[in-house]
Protein backbone atom coordinates (compact mmCIF):
# COMPACT_ATOMS: atom_id res chain seq x y z
CA UNK A 1 0.00 0.00 0.00
CA UNK A 2 1.18 3.53 -0.74
CA UNK A 3 1.38 5.28 2.66
CA UNK A 4 -1.09 8.16 3.11
CA UNK A 5 -2.84 7.57 -0.23
CA UNK A 6 -6.09 6.49 1.45
CA UNK A 7 -8.02 8.15 4.27
CA UNK A 8 -10.72 7.25 6.75
CA UNK A 9 -13.26 10.01 6.14
CA UNK A 10 -16.35 8.81 7.98
CA UNK A 11 -16.62 6.98 11.26
CA UNK A 12 -19.25 6.17 13.85
CA UNK A 13 -20.37 3.67 16.40
CA UNK A 14 -23.96 2.62 16.98
CA UNK A 15 -26.11 5.30 18.61
CA UNK A 16 -26.20 3.20 21.76
CA UNK A 17 -23.69 0.74 23.18
CA UNK A 18 -24.15 -1.85 25.89
CA UNK A 19 -27.53 -3.55 26.10
CA UNK A 20 -29.61 -3.04 22.93
CA UNK A 21 -32.33 -5.72 22.95
CA UNK A 22 -34.45 -3.77 20.45
CA UNK A 23 -31.97 -4.11 17.55
CA UNK A 24 -30.97 -7.25 15.66
CA UNK A 25 -27.45 -7.91 14.42
CA UNK A 26 -28.08 -6.61 10.89
CA UNK A 27 -29.70 -3.43 12.22
CA UNK A 28 -26.64 -2.79 14.43
CA UNK A 29 -24.57 -2.86 11.21
CA UNK A 30 -27.06 -0.49 9.58
CA UNK A 31 -27.31 1.90 12.54
CA UNK A 32 -23.53 2.30 12.61
CA UNK A 33 -23.37 2.62 8.81
CA UNK A 34 -26.04 5.32 8.68
CA UNK A 35 -24.26 7.22 11.47
CA UNK A 36 -20.96 7.01 9.58
CA UNK A 37 -22.58 8.17 6.33
CA UNK A 38 -24.08 11.12 8.20
CA UNK A 39 -20.68 11.86 9.71
CA UNK A 40 -19.16 12.30 6.25
CA UNK A 41 -22.25 13.65 4.50
CA UNK A 42 -22.63 10.78 2.02
CA UNK A 43 -25.54 8.57 0.98
CA UNK A 44 -25.59 4.77 0.49
CA UNK A 45 -25.56 5.42 -3.27
CA UNK A 46 -22.14 7.08 -2.88
CA UNK A 47 -20.68 3.79 -1.61
CA UNK A 48 -19.28 1.33 -4.15
CA UNK A 49 -17.32 -0.99 -1.87
CA UNK A 50 -18.58 -3.02 1.10
CA UNK A 51 -16.60 -5.05 3.63
CA UNK A 52 -17.89 -6.74 6.74
CA UNK A 53 -17.55 -9.72 9.06
CA UNK A 54 -20.17 -11.47 11.15
CA UNK A 55 -22.70 -10.83 8.39
CA UNK A 56 -21.79 -11.59 4.78
CA UNK A 57 -21.28 -8.44 2.66
CA UNK A 58 -24.31 -9.36 0.54
CA UNK A 59 -26.60 -8.92 3.54
CA UNK A 60 -25.19 -5.51 4.45
CA UNK A 61 -25.16 -4.22 0.87
CA UNK A 62 -28.73 -5.33 0.23
CA UNK A 63 -30.04 -4.05 3.56
CA UNK A 64 -28.54 -0.59 3.00
CA UNK A 65 -29.40 -0.45 -0.69
CA UNK A 66 -25.81 -0.41 -1.95
CA UNK A 67 -24.71 -1.84 -5.33
CA UNK A 68 -20.99 -2.45 -4.84
CA UNK A 69 -18.31 -3.09 -7.44
CA UNK A 70 -16.06 -4.54 -4.75
CA UNK A 71 -16.86 -6.67 -1.68
CA UNK A 72 -14.72 -8.24 1.02
CA UNK A 73 -16.09 -10.80 3.46
CA UNK A 74 -12.80 -11.61 5.17
CA UNK A 75 -13.85 -13.05 8.51
CA UNK A 76 -10.96 -14.04 10.75
CA UNK A 77 -12.44 -12.89 14.05
CA UNK A 78 -12.31 -9.59 15.87
CA UNK A 79 -9.47 -8.10 13.81
CA UNK A 80 -11.32 -8.63 10.52
CA UNK A 81 -11.97 -4.89 10.29
CA UNK A 82 -8.24 -4.13 10.34
CA UNK A 83 -7.88 -6.52 7.41
CA UNK A 84 -10.83 -4.84 5.68
CA UNK A 85 -9.11 -1.44 6.01
CA UNK A 86 -5.95 -2.92 4.50
CA UNK A 87 -7.81 -4.63 1.65
CA UNK A 88 -9.98 -1.56 1.00
CA UNK A 89 -6.91 0.66 0.73
CA UNK A 90 -5.41 -1.71 -1.84
CA UNK A 91 -8.71 -1.94 -3.75
CA UNK A 92 -9.17 1.84 -3.93
CA UNK A 93 -5.56 2.26 -5.06
CA UNK A 94 -6.12 -0.42 -7.71
CA UNK A 95 -9.21 1.37 -9.00
CA UNK A 96 -11.64 -1.42 -8.07
CA UNK A 97 -13.85 1.03 -6.18
CA UNK A 98 -13.78 4.60 -4.87
CA UNK A 99 -15.52 4.71 -1.52
CA UNK A 100 -15.67 1.76 0.87
CA UNK A 101 -18.00 1.15 3.80
CA UNK A 102 -16.77 -1.25 6.50
CA UNK A 103 -19.38 -2.33 9.04
CA UNK A 104 -19.54 -4.24 12.29
CA UNK A 105 -22.60 -5.05 14.36
CA UNK A 106 -23.00 -7.69 17.01
CA UNK A 107 -25.73 -8.52 19.45
CA UNK A 108 -23.18 -10.09 21.76
CA UNK A 109 -25.24 -9.70 24.90
CA UNK A 110 -28.87 -9.71 23.80
CA UNK A 111 -28.31 -12.31 21.03
CA UNK A 112 -30.95 -10.83 18.69
CA UNK A 113 -30.71 -12.07 15.10
CA UNK A 114 -27.21 -13.48 15.51
CA UNK A 115 -25.49 -15.61 12.88
CA UNK A 116 -22.37 -16.93 14.59
CA UNK A 117 -22.59 -20.07 16.67
CA UNK A 118 -20.70 -21.92 19.37
CA UNK A 119 -19.48 -24.63 19.74
CA UNK A 120 -17.37 -25.42 16.72
CA UNK A 121 -18.57 -28.17 14.40
CA UNK A 122 -17.76 -31.69 15.55
CA UNK A 123 -15.77 -32.53 12.41
CA UNK A 124 -13.45 -29.49 12.54
CA UNK A 125 -9.99 -29.81 14.05
CA UNK A 126 -11.17 -27.70 17.00
CA UNK A 127 -14.28 -29.86 17.32
CA UNK A 128 -12.21 -33.03 17.48
CA UNK A 129 -9.07 -31.97 19.32
CA UNK A 130 -10.00 -29.06 21.61
CA UNK A 131 -13.74 -28.79 22.29
CA UNK A 132 -14.09 -32.30 23.85
CA UNK A 133 -11.80 -31.25 26.70
CA UNK A 134 -14.32 -28.80 28.08
CA UNK A 135 -13.31 -25.49 26.59
CA UNK A 136 -16.33 -23.29 27.08
CA UNK A 137 -15.50 -20.40 24.80
CA UNK A 138 -12.77 -17.77 24.83
CA UNK A 139 -12.37 -17.51 28.66
CA UNK A 140 -11.03 -21.07 28.77
CA UNK A 141 -9.10 -20.97 25.49
CA UNK A 142 -7.55 -17.57 25.01
CA UNK A 143 -6.16 -17.74 28.54
CA UNK A 144 -4.34 -21.07 28.26
CA UNK A 145 -0.91 -19.71 27.18
CA UNK A 146 -0.54 -17.32 30.13
CA UNK A 147 0.80 -19.65 32.84
CA UNK A 148 3.61 -20.56 30.44
CA UNK A 149 4.36 -16.86 29.88
CA UNK A 150 4.31 -16.26 33.65
CA UNK A 151 6.77 -19.09 34.27
CA UNK A 152 9.12 -18.05 31.44
CA UNK A 153 9.26 -14.36 32.35
CA UNK A 154 8.19 -14.08 35.98
CA UNK A 155 5.09 -12.01 35.24
CA UNK A 156 3.17 -11.73 38.52
CA UNK A 157 -0.56 -11.98 39.17
CA UNK A 158 -0.41 -8.40 40.46
CA UNK A 159 1.18 -7.09 37.25
CA UNK A 160 -1.44 -8.89 35.18
CA UNK A 161 -4.13 -7.35 37.37
CA UNK A 162 -2.70 -3.87 36.74
CA UNK A 163 -3.77 -4.12 33.08
CA UNK A 164 -7.40 -4.01 34.20
CA UNK A 165 -6.75 -1.30 36.80
CA UNK A 166 -5.08 1.06 34.32
CA UNK A 167 -7.71 0.55 31.64
CA UNK A 168 -10.43 1.34 34.14
CA UNK A 169 -8.67 4.67 34.74
CA UNK A 170 -9.03 5.44 31.04
CA UNK A 171 -12.66 4.26 31.05
CA UNK A 172 -13.44 6.63 33.91
CA UNK A 173 -12.80 9.50 31.50
CA UNK A 174 -15.21 8.10 28.90
CA UNK A 175 -18.95 8.72 29.34
CA UNK A 176 -19.78 5.88 26.93
CA UNK A 177 -17.74 3.27 28.81
CA UNK A 178 -19.68 0.39 30.36
CA UNK A 179 -17.63 0.39 33.58
CA UNK A 180 -16.23 3.61 35.05
CA UNK A 181 -15.84 2.90 38.78
CA UNK A 182 -12.18 2.82 39.85
CA UNK A 183 -10.78 -0.61 40.76
CA UNK A 184 -7.63 -1.73 42.58
CA UNK A 185 -5.30 -4.69 42.13
CA UNK A 186 -6.99 -6.23 45.17
CA UNK A 187 -10.43 -5.79 43.57
CA UNK A 188 -9.19 -7.62 40.47
CA UNK A 189 -7.57 -10.45 42.43
CA UNK A 190 -10.66 -10.79 44.66
CA UNK A 191 -13.12 -10.89 41.76
CA UNK A 192 -14.77 -14.16 40.81
CA UNK A 193 -12.49 -16.87 39.45
CA UNK A 194 -13.40 -17.65 35.84
CA UNK A 195 -10.51 -19.81 34.60
CA UNK A 196 -7.40 -19.78 36.78
CA UNK A 197 -5.36 -17.60 36.60
CA UNK A 198 -8.06 -15.33 35.13
CA UNK A 199 -10.68 -13.60 37.22
CA UNK A 200 -13.78 -11.79 36.10
CA UNK A 201 -12.19 -8.33 35.97
CA UNK A 202 -9.51 -9.68 33.64
CA UNK A 203 -12.08 -10.84 31.09
CA UNK A 204 -13.81 -8.61 28.56
CA UNK A 205 -17.37 -7.42 28.72
CA UNK A 206 -20.13 -8.93 26.63
CA UNK A 207 -22.23 -6.16 25.12
CA UNK A 208 -24.21 -5.13 22.04
CA UNK A 209 -23.05 -2.56 19.54
CA UNK A 210 -21.50 -1.79 16.21
CA UNK A 211 -19.30 0.57 14.27
CA UNK A 212 -18.62 1.64 10.72
CA UNK A 213 -15.81 3.25 8.76
CA UNK A 214 -15.81 4.95 5.36
CA UNK A 215 -12.61 5.12 3.34
CA UNK A 216 -11.72 6.86 0.12
CA UNK A 217 -8.68 8.27 -1.65
CA UNK A 218 -6.71 11.02 0.06
CA UNK A 219 -7.45 13.13 -3.00
CA UNK A 220 -11.21 12.77 -2.67
CA UNK A 221 -10.96 13.23 1.12
CA UNK A 222 -10.04 16.89 0.54
CA UNK A 223 -13.62 17.63 -0.58
CA UNK A 224 -15.22 15.92 2.43
CA UNK A 225 -16.09 17.64 5.71
CA UNK A 226 -14.16 15.62 8.30
CA UNK A 227 -10.47 15.85 9.08
CA UNK A 228 -8.96 12.91 7.14
CA UNK A 229 -7.19 10.16 9.01
CA UNK A 230 -4.61 8.73 6.63
CA UNK A 231 -3.67 5.07 6.41
CA UNK A 232 0.06 5.08 6.87
CA UNK A 233 0.93 1.39 7.24
CA UNK A 234 -0.89 -1.94 7.37
CA UNK A 235 -0.23 -5.55 8.24
CA UNK A 236 -2.06 -8.84 8.59
CA UNK A 237 -1.38 -12.49 9.27
CA UNK A 238 -2.82 -15.72 10.65
CA UNK A 239 -1.23 -18.51 12.66
CA UNK A 240 -3.54 -21.37 13.70
CA UNK A 241 -7.21 -21.91 14.57
CA UNK A 242 -6.08 -24.10 17.49
CA UNK A 243 -4.71 -22.36 20.57
CA UNK A 244 -3.00 -25.63 21.53
CA UNK A 245 -0.94 -25.48 18.33
CA UNK A 246 0.49 -21.96 18.74
CA UNK A 247 4.18 -22.13 17.97
CA UNK A 248 5.22 -20.40 21.22
CA UNK A 249 2.90 -19.65 24.14
CA UNK A 250 4.86 -16.52 25.11
CA UNK A 251 4.45 -14.67 21.80
CA UNK A 252 2.02 -14.52 18.89
CA UNK A 253 3.50 -15.16 15.46
CA UNK A 254 0.50 -13.48 13.81
CA UNK A 255 1.07 -10.36 15.96
CA UNK A 256 4.76 -10.20 15.05
CA UNK A 257 4.27 -10.67 11.33
CA UNK A 258 1.39 -8.21 11.10
CA UNK A 259 3.05 -5.57 13.26
CA UNK A 260 6.38 -5.72 11.47
CA UNK A 261 4.70 -5.41 8.08
CA UNK A 262 2.78 -2.33 9.22
CA UNK A 263 5.86 -0.63 10.69
CA UNK A 264 7.89 -1.31 7.56
CA UNK A 265 5.18 0.12 5.35
CA UNK A 266 4.69 3.19 7.54
CA UNK A 267 8.40 3.90 7.80
CA UNK A 268 8.10 5.10 11.39
CA UNK A 269 9.95 4.40 14.62
CA UNK A 270 8.26 3.23 17.82
CA UNK A 271 9.08 6.58 19.41
CA UNK A 272 6.95 8.28 16.72
CA UNK A 273 3.79 6.61 18.04
CA UNK A 274 1.57 8.91 20.13
CA UNK A 275 -1.31 6.56 20.81
CA UNK A 276 -1.86 2.83 20.75
CA UNK A 277 -4.84 0.48 20.77
CA UNK A 278 -4.25 -3.23 21.42
CA UNK A 279 -7.32 -5.44 21.28
CA UNK A 280 -7.84 -6.59 24.88
CA UNK A 281 -10.31 -9.44 25.05
CA UNK A 282 -8.37 -10.56 28.13
CA UNK A 283 -5.82 -8.84 30.34
CA UNK A 284 -2.77 -10.56 28.86
CA UNK A 285 -3.32 -9.26 25.34
CA UNK A 286 -1.83 -5.79 25.84
CA UNK A 287 1.24 -7.52 27.29
CA UNK A 288 1.68 -9.80 24.28
CA UNK A 289 0.85 -6.91 21.94
CA UNK A 290 3.38 -4.47 23.42
CA UNK A 291 6.12 -7.07 23.06
CA UNK A 292 5.15 -8.52 19.68
CA UNK A 293 4.81 -5.03 18.17
CA UNK A 294 8.26 -4.19 19.50
CA UNK A 295 7.36 -1.54 22.11
CA UNK A 296 8.80 -3.69 24.91
CA UNK A 297 11.44 -6.41 25.06
CA UNK A 298 10.11 -9.96 25.59
CA UNK A 299 9.06 -10.40 29.21
CA UNK A 300 9.07 -6.68 30.03
CA UNK A 301 5.55 -5.49 29.16
CA UNK A 302 3.97 -6.48 32.47
CA UNK A 303 6.39 -4.29 34.34
CA UNK A 304 5.91 -1.53 31.74
CA UNK A 305 2.15 -1.46 32.33
CA UNK A 306 2.44 -1.84 36.12
CA UNK A 307 4.87 1.09 36.02
CA UNK A 308 2.00 3.23 34.64
CA UNK A 309 3.68 3.89 31.29
CA UNK A 310 0.41 3.21 29.47
CA UNK A 311 -1.86 4.89 32.06
CA UNK A 312 -3.24 8.44 31.86
CA UNK A 313 -0.20 10.70 31.98
CA UNK A 314 2.15 7.91 30.85
CA UNK A 315 4.48 7.99 27.85
CA UNK A 316 2.46 5.58 25.71
CA UNK A 317 -1.33 6.03 26.11
CA UNK A 318 -2.87 2.60 25.49
CA UNK A 319 -6.51 1.57 25.10
CA UNK A 320 -7.73 5.06 25.94
CA UNK A 321 -11.43 4.22 25.49
CA UNK A 322 -11.17 1.75 28.39
CA UNK A 323 -10.74 -1.23 26.05
CA UNK A 324 -12.64 -4.46 25.83
CA UNK A 325 -12.16 -4.82 29.58
CA UNK A 326 -14.10 -1.64 30.51
CA UNK A 327 -15.44 0.18 27.42
CA UNK A 328 -17.37 -2.43 25.48
CA UNK A 329 -16.85 -5.79 23.77
CA UNK A 330 -19.50 -7.14 21.45
CA UNK A 331 -17.46 -10.15 20.32
CA UNK A 332 -15.47 -8.65 17.44
CA UNK A 333 -13.93 -5.65 19.18
CA UNK A 334 -11.43 -4.62 16.50
CA UNK A 335 -13.85 -2.06 15.08
CA UNK A 336 -13.93 -0.16 18.39
CA UNK A 337 -10.13 -0.02 18.56
CA UNK A 338 -10.13 1.56 15.08
CA UNK A 339 -12.90 3.98 16.11
CA UNK A 340 -10.87 5.20 19.09
CA UNK A 341 -7.74 5.66 16.96
CA UNK A 342 -9.74 7.80 14.53
CA UNK A 343 -11.24 9.86 17.37
CA UNK A 344 -7.78 10.46 18.82
CA UNK A 345 -6.44 11.62 15.46
CA UNK A 346 -9.47 13.83 14.84
CA UNK A 347 -9.01 15.29 18.31
CA UNK A 348 -12.49 14.25 19.45
CA UNK A 349 -11.75 11.45 21.96
CA UNK A 350 -13.26 11.53 25.44
CA UNK A 351 -9.80 11.02 26.92
CA UNK A 352 -7.94 12.98 24.28
CA UNK A 353 -4.18 12.50 23.97
CA UNK A 354 -2.81 15.96 23.42
CA UNK A 355 -1.48 16.57 19.92
CA UNK A 356 -1.73 12.91 18.85
CA UNK A 357 -0.41 12.55 15.30
CA UNK A 358 0.25 8.83 14.89
CA UNK A 359 -1.95 6.08 16.26
CA UNK A 360 -1.85 2.30 15.90
CA UNK A 361 -4.82 -0.05 16.17
CA UNK A 362 -3.68 -3.64 16.58
CA UNK A 363 -6.22 -6.43 16.53
CA UNK A 364 -6.45 -10.11 17.29
CA UNK A 365 -8.77 -12.62 15.63
CA UNK A 366 -9.91 -15.83 17.24
CA UNK A 367 -7.61 -16.95 20.05
CA UNK A 368 -4.24 -15.64 18.79
CA UNK A 369 -5.39 -17.12 15.46
CA UNK A 370 -5.19 -13.98 13.34
CA UNK A 371 -3.98 -10.41 13.50
CA UNK A 372 -4.30 -7.07 11.74
CA UNK A 373 -2.41 -3.83 12.36
CA UNK A 374 -3.32 -0.36 11.07
CA UNK A 375 -1.04 2.64 11.52
CA UNK A 376 -2.84 5.96 11.02
CA UNK A 377 -1.82 9.59 10.93
CA UNK A 378 -3.61 12.93 10.72
CA UNK A 379 -0.71 14.42 8.77
CA UNK A 380 -0.32 13.53 5.11
CA UNK A 381 3.37 14.64 5.09
Amino acid sequence: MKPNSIAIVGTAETTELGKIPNLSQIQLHADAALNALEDVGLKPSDIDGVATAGEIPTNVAYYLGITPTWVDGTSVGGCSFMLHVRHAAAAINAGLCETVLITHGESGRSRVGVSNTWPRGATTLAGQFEMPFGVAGPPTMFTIPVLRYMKEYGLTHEQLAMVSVVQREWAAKNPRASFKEPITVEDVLDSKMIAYPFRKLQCCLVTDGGGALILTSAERAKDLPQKPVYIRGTGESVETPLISQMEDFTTSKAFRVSGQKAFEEAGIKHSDVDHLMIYDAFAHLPIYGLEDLGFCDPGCAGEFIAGRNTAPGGQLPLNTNGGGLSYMHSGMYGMYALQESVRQLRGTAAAQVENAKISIAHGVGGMFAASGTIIMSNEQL
Partner: protein
Amino acid sequence: MAEFKKQVPRPTPETQHFWDGAKNQQLLLQQCDQCQHTYFPPRPFCPKCASREVSITEASGKATLYSYVINHRPLPGFDNPHSIAVVELEEGPRMMSNIVGCPQTPEALVLDMPLKVTFEALTDEINLPKFQPAEA
Protein backbone atom coordinates in the same frame (compact mmCIF):
# COMPACT_ATOMS: atom_id res chain seq x y z
CA MET B 1 -27.49 -40.28 29.63
CA ALA B 2 -30.12 -37.65 28.83
CA GLU B 3 -28.02 -34.92 30.39
CA PHE B 4 -24.99 -35.86 28.32
CA LYS B 5 -23.95 -32.69 26.49
CA LYS B 6 -20.20 -33.00 26.00
CA GLN B 7 -19.03 -32.25 22.51
CA VAL B 8 -18.27 -35.54 20.81
CA PRO B 9 -15.61 -35.55 18.10
CA ARG B 10 -16.78 -36.76 14.71
CA PRO B 11 -13.79 -38.28 12.88
CA THR B 12 -13.07 -37.37 9.27
CA PRO B 13 -11.23 -39.62 6.78
CA GLU B 14 -8.02 -37.79 7.69
CA THR B 15 -8.38 -38.29 11.45
CA GLN B 16 -10.08 -41.70 11.66
CA HIS B 17 -6.82 -43.51 12.47
CA PHE B 18 -6.26 -41.31 15.52
CA TRP B 19 -9.64 -42.15 17.01
CA ASP B 20 -9.31 -45.84 16.09
CA GLY B 21 -5.99 -45.81 17.95
CA ALA B 22 -7.48 -44.10 20.98
CA LYS B 23 -10.19 -46.76 21.06
CA ASN B 24 -7.33 -49.29 21.38
CA GLN B 25 -5.59 -47.26 24.11
CA GLN B 26 -2.96 -46.06 21.65
CA LEU B 27 -1.87 -42.46 21.16
CA LEU B 28 -1.08 -42.19 17.46
CA LEU B 29 0.97 -39.48 15.81
CA GLN B 30 2.21 -39.14 12.25
CA GLN B 31 5.78 -38.90 11.02
CA CYS B 32 7.07 -37.69 7.67
CA ASP B 33 9.01 -40.34 5.74
CA GLN B 34 11.00 -37.62 3.99
CA CYS B 35 12.03 -35.15 6.72
CA GLN B 36 11.21 -37.28 9.82
CA HIS B 37 9.06 -34.50 11.33
CA THR B 38 6.59 -35.89 13.88
CA TYR B 39 3.33 -33.96 14.02
CA PHE B 40 -0.20 -33.54 15.36
CA PRO B 41 -3.12 -32.97 14.67
CA PRO B 42 -3.54 -35.51 11.88
CA ARG B 43 -3.41 -34.74 8.18
CA PRO B 44 -2.22 -36.93 5.29
CA PHE B 45 0.82 -34.80 4.46
CA CYS B 46 3.73 -33.27 6.35
CA PRO B 47 2.99 -29.72 7.58
CA LYS B 48 6.72 -28.97 7.47
CA CYS B 49 7.77 -30.15 3.98
CA ALA B 50 4.38 -30.98 2.35
CA SER B 51 5.41 -34.54 1.52
CA ARG B 52 2.48 -36.96 1.19
CA GLU B 53 4.76 -39.83 2.28
CA VAL B 54 3.86 -40.10 5.96
CA SER B 55 3.57 -42.95 8.45
CA ILE B 56 1.53 -43.45 11.57
CA THR B 57 3.61 -43.91 14.73
CA GLU B 58 2.61 -44.70 18.28
CA ALA B 59 3.64 -42.17 20.90
CA SER B 60 5.22 -43.28 24.16
CA GLY B 61 2.42 -41.58 26.09
CA LYS B 62 4.96 -39.59 28.10
CA ALA B 63 4.43 -35.85 28.25
CA THR B 64 5.03 -32.74 30.32
CA LEU B 65 2.60 -30.00 31.34
CA TYR B 66 3.13 -27.01 29.04
CA SER B 67 0.32 -24.69 30.17
CA TYR B 68 -3.26 -24.78 31.43
CA VAL B 69 -6.25 -23.05 32.94
CA ILE B 70 -8.63 -24.30 35.62
CA ASN B 71 -12.19 -23.65 34.51
CA HIS B 72 -14.44 -22.55 37.37
CA ARG B 73 -17.62 -22.09 35.38
CA PRO B 74 -20.02 -25.03 35.51
CA LEU B 75 -19.94 -27.14 32.37
CA PRO B 76 -22.27 -30.09 31.74
CA GLY B 77 -20.40 -33.39 31.91
CA PHE B 78 -17.35 -31.96 33.69
CA ASP B 79 -16.37 -31.79 37.35
CA ASN B 80 -16.18 -28.24 38.61
CA PRO B 81 -13.50 -26.95 38.62
CA HIS B 82 -11.59 -28.82 35.91
CA SER B 83 -8.28 -28.31 34.17
CA ILE B 84 -7.88 -27.64 30.46
CA ALA B 85 -4.26 -28.21 29.61
CA VAL B 86 -1.83 -28.27 26.74
CA VAL B 87 0.72 -31.04 27.14
CA GLU B 88 3.99 -31.46 25.30
CA LEU B 89 4.53 -35.03 24.16
CA GLU B 90 7.93 -36.67 24.43
CA GLU B 91 7.97 -36.85 20.62
CA GLY B 92 7.55 -33.07 20.32
CA PRO B 93 3.96 -32.25 19.34
CA ARG B 94 1.62 -30.54 21.80
CA MET B 95 -2.03 -31.35 22.30
CA MET B 96 -4.95 -30.16 24.35
CA SER B 97 -6.21 -32.44 27.09
CA ASN B 98 -7.31 -32.59 30.71
CA ILE B 99 -5.06 -33.47 33.64
CA VAL B 100 -6.79 -36.14 35.71
CA GLY B 101 -5.97 -38.17 38.80
CA CYS B 102 -4.85 -35.21 40.89
CA PRO B 103 -6.44 -32.18 42.58
CA GLN B 104 -7.48 -29.47 40.13
CA THR B 105 -5.43 -26.79 41.86
CA PRO B 106 -2.42 -24.63 40.97
CA GLU B 107 -0.49 -26.40 43.76
CA ALA B 108 -1.03 -29.83 42.23
CA LEU B 109 -0.69 -28.72 38.62
CA VAL B 110 2.90 -27.58 38.20
CA LEU B 111 4.25 -26.59 34.80
CA ASP B 112 6.69 -29.08 33.28
CA MET B 113 5.59 -31.89 35.62
CA PRO B 114 5.89 -35.33 33.99
CA LEU B 115 2.65 -36.86 32.77
CA LYS B 116 1.47 -40.09 31.16
CA VAL B 117 -1.47 -40.72 28.90
CA THR B 118 -4.63 -42.48 30.00
CA PHE B 119 -7.78 -43.02 27.97
CA GLU B 120 -11.32 -42.18 29.02
CA ALA B 121 -14.38 -43.45 27.19
CA LEU B 122 -16.57 -40.58 26.01
CA THR B 123 -18.95 -42.78 23.99
CA ASP B 124 -18.88 -46.39 22.76
CA GLU B 125 -16.85 -45.19 19.79
CA ILE B 126 -14.68 -42.39 21.17
CA ASN B 127 -11.93 -42.57 23.78
CA LEU B 128 -10.35 -39.25 24.76
CA PRO B 129 -6.62 -39.15 25.58
CA LYS B 130 -6.18 -37.59 29.01
CA PHE B 131 -3.04 -37.21 31.09
CA GLN B 132 -2.21 -37.98 34.70
CA PRO B 133 0.85 -37.32 36.86
CA ALA B 134 3.56 -39.82 35.85
CA GLU B 135 4.28 -40.91 39.41
CA ALA B 136 0.63 -41.83 40.01
